[in-house]
């Protein structure tokens, strides 16, 4: 990461008000860990490839992929403030990056139109229609998927007697995992956007909590986050037909570096879980 580039990215995205913060910006341990797992460890899926970063937000991972040899990066993000700022940044520095406004439902079309080799999915598993998106990617010509999830532990749901009884009597078999649904709000520029009111969202910020008259509208900004269990994610990856080239959990990564797994949970800790990283191959 080039600190001068990051400062300038921030200036394009957040304006001059970001510059005092950026003068002393140092990537946090959490950012560095994600950098290692999503970029450095996925070199073969990035270098020389056309990469799409879905839900790119402030564009940090798009930028990192470009710096690590991606031939072209397409960042997709519904919030205009990021798309406009990042395009301006890329153009000013003549970087092979392009940003477009879009949603998870645009994945198949964008992959086709931009001849994408690798899709990056950085913590979008709980704010998208994840299964549909994964099927779209599987059906596409994409070769690689770099994915950072924050699944919940399988042990969180102890199966009750009723589950076994139902499995037996219904013929459905035992559950392979579970999804927990959390009610939340589109409250900041990283939040999920309510898909029902997508067209009415503020085009710059994606916010949905104000109506046309500027009055508070909590109904339109209400969203559901879907946290999937680790076993379910793995079963789904297998079901969709991806090959897992590499997978690692945050606790494994921290232990491998001699650290304490209970630390460095910023970001994922907000959702009571830790990160898992995957490199998936999409064989035909």
């Amino acid at each position, binding site marked *: 990461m080039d600190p001068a580039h990051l400062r300038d990215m921030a200036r394009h*995205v*957040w304006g001059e008000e970001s510059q005092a913060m950026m003068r002393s910006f140092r990537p946090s341990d959490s950012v560095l860990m994600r950098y290692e797992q999503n970029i450095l460890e996925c070199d073969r899926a990035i270098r020389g490839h056309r990469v799409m970063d879905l839900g790119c937000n402030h564009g940090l991972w798009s930028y990192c992929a470009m710096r690590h040899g991606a031939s072209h990066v397409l960042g997709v993000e519904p919030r205009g403030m990021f798309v406009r700022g990042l395009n301006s940044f890329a153009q000013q520095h003549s970087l092979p990056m392009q940003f477009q406004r879009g949603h998870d439902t645009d994945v198949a079309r964008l992959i086709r139109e931009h001849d994408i080799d690798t899709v990056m999915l950085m913590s979008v598993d709980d704010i998208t229609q994840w299964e549909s998106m994964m099927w779209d990617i599987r059906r596409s010509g994409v070769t690689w998927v770099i994915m950072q999830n924050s699944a919940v532990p399988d042990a969180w749901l102890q199966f009750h007697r009723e589950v076994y009884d139902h499995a037996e009597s219904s013929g459905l078999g035992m559950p392979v995992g579970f999804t927990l649904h959390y009610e939340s709000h589109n409250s900041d520029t990283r939040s999920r956007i309510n898909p029902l009111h997508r067209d009415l969202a503020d085009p710059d910020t994606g*916010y949905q*909590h104000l109506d046309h008259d500027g009055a508070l509208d909590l109904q339109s900004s209400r969203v559901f986050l879907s946290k999937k269990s680790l076993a379910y994610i793995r079963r789904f990856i297998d079901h969709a037909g991806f090959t897992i080239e590499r997978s690692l959990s945050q606790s494994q990564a921290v232990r491998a570096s001699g650290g304490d797994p209970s630390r460095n949970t910023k970001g994922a800790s907000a959702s009571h879980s830790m990160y898992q990283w995957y490199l998936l191959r999409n064989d035909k």
Partner: protein
Amino acid sequence: MTHATTIALTVRADMQDEVQGFLHHKTLPGARVRLGDGVLEHRFTRAGEQHQFVMTQELAEGEHDLTLEFMEDREPQGALEVRSLRVQGNPMGLDLFRCTYRPWKRQEALPAHLYMGWPGTWSIEIQVPTHTRMGGVGFD
């Protein structure tokens, strides 16, 4: 260790019953913004005027109150309305409503109020460092 923190708070003066011709009975409000050791003031000069307070402070890690208050407590005077807040350039959304308005003449705290009809103090918590503690701020 301190962290440079920039806020941009946009405030509007609302003379409320201008239409009814009561404007002459009220004075235009003045507003004072505080964060850390920083203080900014602005006296509004016309009804409906919007003013943006932009301030950068070096703040220690932890919670800090950003406050907006009337410069005088006399009445009648126009109201103040918080229109928007950016932290490090990032526009706050629904979290802006995690604020409290305390009218001076009433012994109560009114949560989630952006409109200050009576002289008083409005405050919101800024969590520092913002890029690791406030959603959507900075690279994290």
